């Protein structure tokens, strides 16, 4: 048993190295000066720490484009995810608690949309947005971000199991209207599912690349992913490796922290996802 455990541990550690070493390299590299990036031990720190220096340069590079992209990413992700969560909760609750004709048909269409990958939808969205003049505005990225079919699925499942009918009936007898019951009673009971929906949507928007790439020609509207992609694509002519490396690290930090702190919600969301099959 002990030998099995040791060999399992060695195997797990080796695989963990594969997943962690690139991130480690990014952290170490963000502390190096541009010269130190080339040559020397890539997996260990240089003679001096230049992290503060590098961060400062990332934030002032190209006339302060980076902090603007950070704010844009936050706006798209937080704004989009809050609205998406509320809309999904309302729709999911309605589908769970009100039996109306065509309910299951509508639900099937919404679930089917989970199978449509966002990049395949981006081009049609772009064609539509450019014919309506929405293209190259904040709205062109925000509006598609507030619709999450997966969130509706999750909200419906959760509302069915965690908002008791008796509670709704009791509130009605007390004279509360249906909308008030939803906003004061049901939303609170559904809050664990809402956190999960918010997280998935936040990360989905934060990571989105294809939609903003198509929609946004103006670099003032870009999110972080698009900005870093652009800087990275210029490397052949502009060797600002230190800027791209440090910028990449900064763009990763908030999400990694959120992942570690909110592990519980991730797992419950993924567990719900695996129930679908």
């Amino acid at each position, binding site marked *: 048993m002990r030998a099995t455990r040791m060999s*399992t541990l060695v195997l797990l550690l080796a695989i963990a190295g594969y997943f962690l070493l690139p991130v480690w390299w990014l952290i170490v590299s963000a502390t190096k000066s541009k010269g130190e990036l080339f040559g020397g031990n890539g997996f260990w720190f240089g003679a001096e720490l230049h992290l503060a220096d590098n961060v400062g340069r990332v934030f002032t590079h190209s006339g302060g484009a980076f902090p603007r992209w950070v704010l844009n990413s936050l706006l798209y992700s937080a704004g989009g995810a809050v609205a998406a969560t509320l809309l999904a909760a309302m729709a999911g609750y309605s589908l769970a608690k009100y039996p109306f004709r065509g309910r299951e048909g509508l639900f099937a269409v919404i679930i089917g949309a989970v199978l*449509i990958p966002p990049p395949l939808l981006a081009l049609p969205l772009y064609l539509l947005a450019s014919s309506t003049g929405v293209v190259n505005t904040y709205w062109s990225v925000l509006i598609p971000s507030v619709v999450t079919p997966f969130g509706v699925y999750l909200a419906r499942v959760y509302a069915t199991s965690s908002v008791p009918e008796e509670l709704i009936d009791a509130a009605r007898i007390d004279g509360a209207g249906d909308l008030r019951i939803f906003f004061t009673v049901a939303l609170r009971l559904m809050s664990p599912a809402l956190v999960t929906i918010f997280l998935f949507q936040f990360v989905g928007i934060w990571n989105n690349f294809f939609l903003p790439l198509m929609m946004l020609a103006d670099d003032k509207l870009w999110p972080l992913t698009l900005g870093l992609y652009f800087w990275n694509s210029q490397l052949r002519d502009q060797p600002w490796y230190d800027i791209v490396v440090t910028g990449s690290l900064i763009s990763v930090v908030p999400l990694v922290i959120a992942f570690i702190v909110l592990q519980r919600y991730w797992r419950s969301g993924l567990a719900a996802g695996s129930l679908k099959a």
Partner: protein
Amino acid sequence: MIRRHRVAALLLLAPFVVLFAAVFVLPIGYAVHQSLFRVERSGLGLGPAETVFAGLSNYARVFADSAFVGSVVRVIAFGLVQVPVMLGLALLLALLLDSRAAWFGRFFRLAYFLPFAIPGVIAAVLWSFLYVPGISPLPAFDFLSADTILWSIGNIVTWSWTGYNMVILHTSLRSIPRELFEAAEVDGCSGWRIAWHIKIPLLRPSLTLTGVFSIIGTLQLFGEPMVLRSMASVISGGYTPVMLSYQAAFGLNDYNFAAAIAVVLAVATFVFSYGFLRLSSRGT
């Protein structure tokens, strides 16, 4: 249902349904519509543009386009290797972490899942630094040649998504009643036999799910090759089907052709996913 309740149900549902129609149904319909037209210019292409009905000719162009066929063959070949490798690794890790032999399960779960927190584009930027000689700490090897580039892209995708799939598989392993294994253990079954004969068959629905999502992911391959393109000249503008549709729209301004590619891809994705679901549910 009382009328008052019906109004409430509608009010709660309407905002989502309206926006859903606006960003899912309407664009798809509009893309289908666009794919049936063609822009024609008179006078050696310098005259005024005119939009004319083209029937299915854009679709005929898509299937006759050797770049499109090449890109589809490329992503299918890619998926045939990358998806089994990634899901095999995810399954192995889920089983190892579920077995009694695993120490520090929490730490390892988090370590494997970590790359999922990194945006795909940033992951590609990060790996591209590890691929480029000079800045890379890895031993000298040409990761960006015509022979190796697809493997290098596959590595980025595998690195990003193995942990995600592992968590799904591990979570459904955890939901299996423990007594099932304990009975087998009492009968003297080894850990590997329990995994093979009990756990993997029970994981089938989850494996199907991760399989479908991985196939969808393969067909929409875009960010990684786009990022590597600035360093690897072997990646053409139409390297993958989605890149080709992007190039048609933005490089050539041929929106009708781009729309036809998008519609073909959407149908193909649906057929692949649905076919895979049917195939893997057979015999259970």
